[in-house]
């Protein structure tokens, strides 16, 4: 059901977009045709009409935005925007002892994009300005009173409070998340790497070359390594999510069991692991399993083994150890969640099952588990995607090591896509491939989320357990 409505919405979405655009253009024309001189001049000088009608607050706001944006675009941005197509052509040269800097591709790309957004913002505000003027004019024509400046201002804390609340967060997300992400998506289509580093070198657009490189399986190509890392990422996330999940429920049930005392004590012991900053516990545990660490030390001393177990240096063993350590990290958290949820299962379900003579195992399989899976479906999904990007556990435990075999791009056997991306950025300054990997992480996360989300029982049938 959810699917069909979605599909319809999408189809309507595109249709809507064009009809809205058409209406918009019609509306703009109508505003100009029917507008008085105040409205008409506002087409060029934003907020002119509002100012003359006495609404100086919004008038000044619109005018200030126009002047600010225009100044930014013309005085600062235009230079960068015009070079966006080539990312700069003037090479940095050395003339004798002095370096003459040419174009900086990095700046051109970054500020070019910023200017592009400023242009969009300008158009948007122009449109808003026209709407405002039309509304004001129509209100006056119909003999209604315009809101006073005071009311205008007060509305920012009442009917338009959402704008006040969201202005800062949305701007923050735009500058610190949206812009950098778009920038990096663009980098994936350039040759920005160790050999093309601004300001001494230029980089430029190379089309899909990096993506071809990612899927090329030759000796220098990233294909083989990418598949290896991707498979391990998916496998790791699967185990990390589901083992923790089931064991977490098991521990929660163990503590919740009737007749067990000191419930709070047991819980507190486990919860302590969440409180201690992960870098302390993970780094310590990584040394615990090291070849000269405590575990190997004691086993050797007691004569259980004759040489150290290669917990971190054998690829397979390293993977298993990571998953085991992650159980240690993850169970307390899932125990907490499971405890809260188990208490919400209606007691009478168990009561009637008991009367029917159900065994504890049957009750677990037919009441507890379905309920838990139903309620925590979306949560499991976020856990899974979170584990796909679980940088801390991998990086603090192994840093992706051991590096064996023929992996390229500095990848180790326990590297996830995300830690590989990090290494490529920090160690190799191979930004072009790092950007491609980043896009791949997004694609994997998005595809899994979309597919799984549509299969979740709690999404299909929201009322199921209520």
């Amino acid at each position, binding site marked *: 059901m959810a699917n069909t409505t979605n599909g319809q919405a999408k189809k309507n979405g595109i249709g809507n977009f064009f009809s809205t655009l058409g209406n918009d253009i019609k509306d703009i024309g109508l505003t100009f045709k029917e507008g008085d001189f105040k409205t008409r001049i506002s087409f060029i000088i934003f907020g002119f009409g509002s100012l003359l009608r006495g609404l100086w607050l919004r008038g000044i706001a619109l005018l200030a935005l126009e002047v600010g944006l225009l100044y930014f675009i013309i005085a600062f941005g235009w230079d960068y925007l015009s070079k966006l197509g080539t990312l700069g052509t003037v090479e940095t040269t050395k003339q004798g002892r002095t370096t003459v800097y040419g174009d900086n591709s990095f700046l051109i790309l*970054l500020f070019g994009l910023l200017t592009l957004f400023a242009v969009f913002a300008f158009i948007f505000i122009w449109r808003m300005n026209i709407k405002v003027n039309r509304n004001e004019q129509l209100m006056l024509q119909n003999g209604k009173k315009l809101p006073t400046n005071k009311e205008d201002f007060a509305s920012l*804390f009442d*009917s338009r*409070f*959402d*704008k*006040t*609340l*969201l202005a800062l*967060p*949305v701007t*923050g*997300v735009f*500058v*610190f*998340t949206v812009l*950098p*992400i778009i920038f*990096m998506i663009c980098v994936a289509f350039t040759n920005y790497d160790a050999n093309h580093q601004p300001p001494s070198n230029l980089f430029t657009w190379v089309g899909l070359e990096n993506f071809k490189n990612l899927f090329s399986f030759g000796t220098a190509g990233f294909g083989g390594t990418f598949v290896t890392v991707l498979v391990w990422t998916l496998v790791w996330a699967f185990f990390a999510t589901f083992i923790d999940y089931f064991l977490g429920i098991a521990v929660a049930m*163990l503590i919740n*069991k009737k*007749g*067990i005392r000191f419930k709070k004590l*047991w819980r507190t*012991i*486990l*919860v*302590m692991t969440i*409180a*201690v*900053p992960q*870098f*302390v516990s993970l*780094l*310590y545990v990584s*040394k*615990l399993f*090291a070849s000269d660490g*405590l575990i*190997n*030390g004691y086993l050797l001393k007691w004569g259980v083994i004759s040489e150290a177990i290669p917990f971190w240096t054998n690829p397979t063993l390293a993977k298993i150890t990571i998953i085991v350590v992650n159980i240690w990290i993850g169970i307390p958290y899932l125990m*907490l*969640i499971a*405890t*809260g*949820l188990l208490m919400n299962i209606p007691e009478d379900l168990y009561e009637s099952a008991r009367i029917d003579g159900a065994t504890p195992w049957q009750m677990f399989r037919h009441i507890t588990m379905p309920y838990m899976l139903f309620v925590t479906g*979306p*949560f499991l999904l976020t856990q899974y995607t979170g584990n796909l*990007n679980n940088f*801390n556990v991998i*990086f*603090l435990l192994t840093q992706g090591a051991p590096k064996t075999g023929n992996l390229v791009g500095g990848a180790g056997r326990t590297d996830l896509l995300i830690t590989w*991306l990090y290494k490529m*950025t920090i160690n190799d300054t191979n*930004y072009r491939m*790092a950007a491609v990997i*980043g896009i791949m992480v*997004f694609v994997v*996360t*998005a595809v899994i989320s979309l597919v799984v989300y549509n299969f979740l029982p709690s999404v299909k049938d929201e009322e199921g357990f209520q």
Partner: protein
Amino acid sequence: MAKNNPGSMKRKRTIGNIVSYILLILISVIWLFPYFGLLMQSFRSYDPAVEYGGMVDYIIPHTFSLDNYKFLFDGGTNYVRWYLNTLVIAIFVSIFNTIIVLCVSYALSRMRFKGRTLLMRFWLVLGMFPGFLTMICLYFLLKQVGLTQAGAVPGLILVSVASSGMGYYVCKGYFDTIPKALDEAARIDGASRARVFFTMTIPMSKPIIIYTALVAFMGPWCDYVFASYIAFGHDESYNVAVAMQRWMVVGDYQGYFTRFCAGGIVVAIPVTILFMFLQKYYVEGVTGGAVKG
């Protein structure tokens, strides 16, 4: 199933309980063991005249000493500085993140405006991009305004706060459970949205405010990636995670291990105590968030 007579049932339950207790004790030991080891090894002196500061094959030190702790605070390293850096970041991030999350959650939960679902969907998609992708670009943006290296502390606060709006899910979920009728009643009495927000919603949301602030406070203590990139090469701007990771990875052969343990204990104790006090709110937030997804 065999016939149940009360006697065998009782015996069965007793055995079951004993097994459960054994399991619980075993679990407790496994979970506490690393912390016990951390604490014990922090008391092993790194001074070669006394003992050894690297990796050894025993837990309990032969002689207990406070050398490692003295080392942290005697000014030979910037440990105190790193600690204060992290604390300052954590406090500011905690305050500002909470304010921003509250604003966003209220707007998305209570108000219906054009582009609301679009914004939510857009942020959801945005969240699927790995965070480090933004790192290179952010480093440069911050460098333009002097917030890297020497200015890394305010830089890190800014980065963390700026994108905190996207983490509104749990808080919005909580606001959604506060009946809208309350808002409407207040608005009929002439209260503005802002007044409803400040005088009704916020006082009613103590648990979720504490949860948000607590989670935001704990984050910077583990922040490794951004902190290491933005403070790159500038020792005085490191946070504890970056600085001490270096001790473990680079300095290990010099026997920095026990000093790491001591540093870890000093970091862990206040954070753990704070967490224990506010545990109730954390549990509430986590379970609430999990159900709503």
